[in-house]
């Protein structure tokens, strides 16, 4: 019985014609920040004028400014126009299934603490099909940054009602205007236990970058609600927040206490177009840290033992 037909074998690193000759090490100190050219991959397939372009551009800026390296950045997404993000970034990327980017990213975050985990997606991906995962990733406070490019509509599938579509929005599935009360993503995030909640809009690049930097520096689940216009199916949706279109871009009031959950919740209810900035930031231990602590405790009890010896101890109790 104990003959394994498929014993352990070391695997080739890469397949096919690609050689796996050793590559000399490259010290971080010898590296220059990545340029936009180095960090961009496929040309985005978005419609000209789509708000998602500016989110991508600012992600590149973030990578450059914060001196992150290709191999350390992971970009994860579900399905939607916005979720095509990973193809446009020259870094390890994963384009997963609709609505499940957060659990996928959690698997990366929890098993690979050495990586930066960024998740991008749409409002449908986040709050409809992925709604349950949003709540649980937030409450578990799994370390990652999640940017929802909210366009109040289903872009990829061509104009159906989204969970953030305002009442009265005429879509292909609500030709008489949407009837259902929209979700308020900020309230949702706060109520679920997210430890960092911010709001920004694609028309204010500096602000987007500022929020991304703050989110990335937050040790925990950081959520950014980013208004990102779908020029194809919901043009003008965010004009009210764009000074160039006659709207107003109000910052979160200076006196707002970002550690006050109730104040954040109230602020999230500010009448449209609301305000922008950090609504809530109140760190608590991440799941990453909590699990690491458990591991540390258990490892200390078996220190010095090889894995097979630990297993042998368990088996000794089963004789």
């Amino acid at each position, binding site marked *: *019985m*104990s003959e*394994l*037909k*498929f014993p352990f*074998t070391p*695997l080739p*690193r*890469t*397949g096919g*014609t*690609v*050689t*796996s*000759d*050793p*590559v000399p*090490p490259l010290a971080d100190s010898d590296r220059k920040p990545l340029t936009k050219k180095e960090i961009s991959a496929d040309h985005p397939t978005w419609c000209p004028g789509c708000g998602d372009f500016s989110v991508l551009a600012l992600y590149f800026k973030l990578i450059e400014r914060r001196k992150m390296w*290709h*191999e*350390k950045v992971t970009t994860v997404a579900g399905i939607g126009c916005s979720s095509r993000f990973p*193809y446009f970034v*020259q*870094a*390890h990327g*994963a*384009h*997963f*299934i609709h609505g*499940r980017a957060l*659990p*996928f*990213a*959690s*698997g*990366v*975050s*929890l*098993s*690979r603490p050495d*990586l930066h985990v960024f998740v991008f997606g749409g409002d449908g991906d986040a709050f409809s099909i992925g709604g*349950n995962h949003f*709540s*649980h990733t937030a409450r578990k406070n799994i370390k990652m940054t999640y940017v929802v490019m909210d366009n109040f509509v289903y872009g990829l599938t061509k104009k159906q009602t989204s969970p953030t579509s305002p009442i009265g929005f005429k879509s292909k599935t609500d030709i008489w205007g949407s009837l259902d009360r929209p979700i308020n993503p900020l309230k949702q995030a706060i109520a679920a236990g997210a430890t960092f909640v911010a709001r920004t809009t694609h028309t204010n690049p500096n602000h987007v970058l500022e929020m991304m930097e703050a989110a990335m520096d937050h040790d925990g689940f950081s959520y950014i609600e980013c208004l990102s216009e779908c020029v194809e199916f919901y043009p003008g949706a965010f004009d009210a927040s764009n000074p160039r279109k006659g709207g107003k871009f109000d910052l979160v009031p200076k006196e707002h206490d970002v550690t006050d959950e109730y104040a954040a919740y109230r602020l999230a209810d500010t009448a449209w177009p609301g305000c922008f900035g950090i609504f809530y930031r109140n760190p608590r231990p991440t*799941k990453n840290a909590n699990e690491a602590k*458990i*591991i540390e405790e*258990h*490892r200390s*009890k*078996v220190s010095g033992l090889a*894995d*097979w010896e*630990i*297993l*042998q101890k368990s*088996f000794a*109790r*089963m*004789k």
Partner: protein
Amino acid sequence: MSAVAEGPSSADGQSRLTKINEAVIRIAGNSQDGIQAIGGFLARLAGRSEQEVMTFMTIPSTISGGPSIFQVRIGSGDVLSAGDEADMLLAFYQHSYEGHINSVKLGGIVLYDSDHVTPKPEWLERYRHVGVAISSKTVEAIGGTGRDKGKNIFSLGLLARIYDLDVEKITKLLGERFGGKDATILQNAVTCFNAGHSHQLQDLLKTYQFRHAEVRGGQQVVMNGNEALAFGLIAAGVRFGAGYPITPWSDIMELLRRELPKYGGTFVQCEDEIASISMAIGASWGGRVAVTGSSGPGISLKTEALGWASMAEMPLIIVDVQRGGPSTGMPTNVEQSDLNIACFGGHGDSPRVVLAPSGVEDCFYTAIEAVNIARKYSTPVLILTDQGIASRIEAFIEPDLRKVCQDITPDLSPVPDHKPYDLTAPDGVTRHLAPGTRIASGKYPVVTGLEHDELGHPTGSPKLHVAMTAKRRNKLRKLASDLPVPAVYGPSEGQILLVGWGSTYGPMREAVDTFRSLGDAVSCINLKYVNPLPGGLDEIFKGFRHVFVVELNDEGVYGYGQLGAVLRARHCDPKIRGITKVDGLTWKVKEIVDRVRAAVGGAPVKA
């Protein structure tokens, strides 16, 4: 109880000692009576005495109370199934007595709690009845608190007396199980055991003694299939898992949750099965094969993400502890009706590997093979076990842990260039690099569920879809060619070949022995590699007039079970037929024998 020799009468002339090769003991009571504990003790005792042992239990799906049974078969030779008929029934209640007397051999022993059971006169002649006031004697032994909580241990004492079990070893086991902070617990257990053991069994004339088992190389470990599978995954190097509770899968996740931190790993309880598989896939992408699993409905929920793993060619282990379905079905009963979803579940052409361990020991090794296949062929692998294997306890030789434990830590050293979905790769096998790996060319891959080019970037090219679909399929063909041709148990030519998989293996092999002992030309093969199937089956089938696929699922609209239908489709051989059932219980040897005889219309099956 195959009594082979009568031993000498004991000195007092009262009870005679009979040497036996094996015994099947069924214990019936309610789930809170701790009958699983007696079964567990007997199983571990057998393991320590180098005996083979197999158990079988049913637990009600509701948590409180309700009838429950545990059957243990202990033998000095090969034990392949839990035994068709019991040599002894230990019945705690009237309902246990009446509900299980049919499972006892004619002339077998019925040991009953006379505080609760009134024997039926019509059965007194057919079975040897031995009444003991188990409840009141237990209360008496531990000093009259009015509670009969130790009656399972008292009964263990009775059994130890009847079967001349090693009291020293049992006392040691009691110490391991009950020795703890509160010394009175162990004290009570020992008192109960001694009371049972010293009880005078006036109405029983014989006691029994197991013949010495052949000495095996190495010490035995005793565990159930879920434990063996979980420990196998740990040995294989799996350090991350994610799951959502459901019976009978939960045991595996609970064990991994408890054990993995010792090895630096984590198991996460997720919000649902979709999140679980997604998280496991994310961790696998992180560089080290991860595990998820479920039973019944949870497997259905995982199929979309499984399709992604197939498309993205991501190594992953998915454990399916099958139970009765569809839907919530028969949550605590055994069935093998997930073969279709395991092999084919999901939309699109989504090749994946399916392995089916045939017993507890096999669970351990299959887990390791599954991980190695997942890595080598960069593919999701399903391990199809079932409620029967999951919950039964077996003893097996402790694996050579030093040898089988493997380190699958990902190599993150930089590479010059990389194309995961390289179409020129040998046998079409994809190689993923874990994130964190620097690629000197500056070209980074994307793993994706969209049809893609060699770097993982999306494509709408029909040509690439054709090429990539072939690539995903061909690597499984390569795997198929690496699979061992199944060994035929029995001669390779004869009248009837039985084909089984998973938990059917044990009883099927015993059925072959039964047939052979009557001179019938029956052999069998077990298919552990369910998808892809190994080569060489045509050749094997050629040697027989009939091929019966024995499995625990429905015969379906067209009259074949699930594996039967696959074999029909693959081999186009009209002699392949199905023998199936869905009564929620593992195969009995006699059932297989009778069904085979009926299927050939009573025609002779001699060579």
